[in-house]
């Protein structure tokens, strides 16, 4: 449904997006995961035509976006990160207006708005001004405004940012339902849990580049057989790579003065790994074992945590 190849955009000397490539199929949620300033919003802005790329190509349903942007935009629905709503109007009026702008007739827009209000659990507050809504309700209306014309490709730019867990759960549930209707969804987020639970494939983006891409398990496999150890000790002045046999058995994901995060190499027995770590020439305080998360993958790729 959407294919992005070698997309680039620079603002002055800053390369906001640098050769980003990915594709999103029908009925798939593709997550673009990265910290703030990684280039997610710039990527989405180029995909929906708000920004003109410096290089690269965007294909929507196999056709170049730049060749016929109007047609490509008809297939898309976009939910911006900021609330793009008229606060003086009611939720219903907002939906109906954006439906009319999307090309629906008045009656169609009215009917579709009622359907969406129902689906978004907002019917009882539909005729109240948006300015009186809670943050979660505004987010839901913001999402609904992109869906009036039943787009085949949905671009969601951090649609759950700044809302409480219950409201987030409602939105995620709704998005999962959309996927079931065959809609292709490009979903940007900096919440690991959202990417892990919602997305079929994930692209990890930082400093404008996609560092890794794949399903959750494919990304976890990058860390070996799924063994990640966190070692708490005083590592000031230490160089683990010089410890005898250490580099052959562990890959350092992160090191600080008080903590070392390592992934086991190969398919070792966890007990053997523990024994090795306990025998290190250093005074240990704690060693813990866990399944690798996307944060660990990110850590391995960038040397820092996603939320730093």
């Amino acid at each position, binding site marked *: 449904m959407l294919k992005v190849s070698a997309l680039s955009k620079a603002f002055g000397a800053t390369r906001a997006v640098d050769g980003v490539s990915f594709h999103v199929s029908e009925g798939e949620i593709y997550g673009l995961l990265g910290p703030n300033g990684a280039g997610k919003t710039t990527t989405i802005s180029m995909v*929906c*035509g*708000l*920004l*003109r790329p410096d290089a690269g190509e965007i294909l929507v349903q196999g056709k170049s976006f730049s060749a016929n*942007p*109007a047609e490509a*935009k008809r297939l*898309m629905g*976009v939910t*911006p990160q*900021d*609330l*793009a*709503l*008229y606060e*003086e*109007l009611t939720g219903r*009026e907002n939906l109906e*207006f*954006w439906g*009319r*702008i*999307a090309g629906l007739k008045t009656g169609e827009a009215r009917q579709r708005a009622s359907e969406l209000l129902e689906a978004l659990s907002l019917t009882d507050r539909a005729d109240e*001004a948006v300015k009186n809504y809670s943050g979660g309700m505004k987010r839901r209306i913001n999402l609904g*405004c992109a869906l009036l014309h039943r787009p085949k490709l949905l671009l969601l730019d951090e649609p759950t940012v700044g809302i409480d867990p219950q409201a987030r759960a409602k939105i995620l549930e709704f998005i999962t339902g959309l996927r079931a209707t065959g809609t292709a969804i490009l979903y940007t987020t900096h919440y690991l849990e959202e990417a892990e639970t919602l997305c079929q494939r994930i692209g990890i983006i930082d400093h404008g580049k996609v560092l890794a891409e794949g399903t959750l398990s494919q990304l976890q496999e990058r860390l070996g057989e799924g063994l990640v150890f966190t070692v708490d000790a005083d590592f000031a002045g230490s160089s683990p790579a010089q410890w005898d046999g250490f580099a052959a058995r562990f890959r350092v994901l992160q090191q600080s003065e008080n903590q070392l995060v390592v992934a086991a190499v190969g398919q070792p027995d966890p007990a053997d790994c523990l024994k090795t770590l306990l025998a290190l020439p250093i005074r240990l305080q704690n060693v813990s074992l866990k399944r690798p998360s996307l944060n660990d993958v990110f850590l391995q790729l960038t040397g820092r945590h996603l939320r730093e």
Partner: protein
Amino acid sequence: MLRALLAKDLRRARRNPIPWLLNLALPMMITAVIGLVFGSGSGNDNSLGRIKFAVVDEDKSPLADFLRGAANQGKAAQYLEPVFLERDEAERQLKDDKLSAMLVIPPRFTSNYLTGQKVQLELIKNPAEQIHPAVLEELLGVVVTGLNAISRNFNAEFPAWRKALEDQSDYHEIARLIDQTGDKLHAARKYLFPPLVTYTNSVEDAKPVATASPTSPSSTPVAESNPAPKFNLFAFLLVGMAGMFLLLLANQGMTDLHREVWKRTFERYHTMHDSLLPFVMGKALFTAVIVSIGAAIILVGGQWIFHFRWPRPLELGVLTLGYVCFATGLMAVTVAIMPDERRANALNNILSMILSMAGGCMFPPDELPAAMREHLSPLLPTYWFATAARNLWWSESGWIVPAAKLTALGALCLALAAFLFKRRFEKGAR
């Protein structure tokens, strides 16, 4: 789509009316305040009202008595309200804003006048008022011109008159002098009546007489039998205030585009449509509609509030629509140039003030500095509107050209704004 955009904006304006109402209430309030200050004594007709002034008669002569009597009779009594006071009391009342001016007839005024010596009348104006003292000054100028003319033509009779007035002559002597002066006036009558130069205030009917017969050689204008309406200060002021506040209203309408940009609704629209001009044109249409509604409220509402009737409402309506077109176009251009609401507002407010002031909306055009009045003001659209609208009070003609010029200029501005917006969007400006 334009209908949906317009309906949305009108609904938003209705839900948040305070900024709009302020721009509608202010011209009414200013008109009311200025009108009541300068025309409060006018009664129901809301004309200039009677001008109250003091006459300080330090001459105590029969000529001063004659002036006192003249000011209290006929038409003069309708417009003038002289009070005869001592100088101290007159000055006190002038300071208390109870008088528009005080006229001082100095000692030996009559005697000096009749002996051909230079005489002076002193007019002290109330600085807190503008129009009434100015009218009195003009009237005094007429009186002085008359006294000069009498002095030049009846110089030979003056000694006898002086003697009669100073010696308190009997009535037979005064009657003889009147008779003698009357004879002289009678002899001069053929030179004075009819006068060589006359001024006639007439209202012509612009519509020619319908000519059904092709043999009719020409159409003849029909003279308007109704007298011209009286000057109305509220109507005069309201036109100027409308000229200024409709510009501010247009600014508020067009800068809503900037608000749509920072609220990201403009961006959302852009994700749905490639061409952004319909959105901008929708905003211009909204501005034109809201300014038209504003004009109707100010001008029609003003009629009801200040108890007068526009003599030619249709012509005024068409002229105002031309001005609405201009105001919308001008503000569209400035919004297209300015990158954000704050700067656009600052520029537009300054521009509106300058245009209003130099165009004669805030002050009567005659009060403007000569250089501005003669060289700058006639070039300004605000002047075209204010002058043509005020002239409509007296005359049916003279509004079509200003209306056409305003409409054409508005259309030109809108085309320029569309070009500027298109260029900005092509550059990727959001």
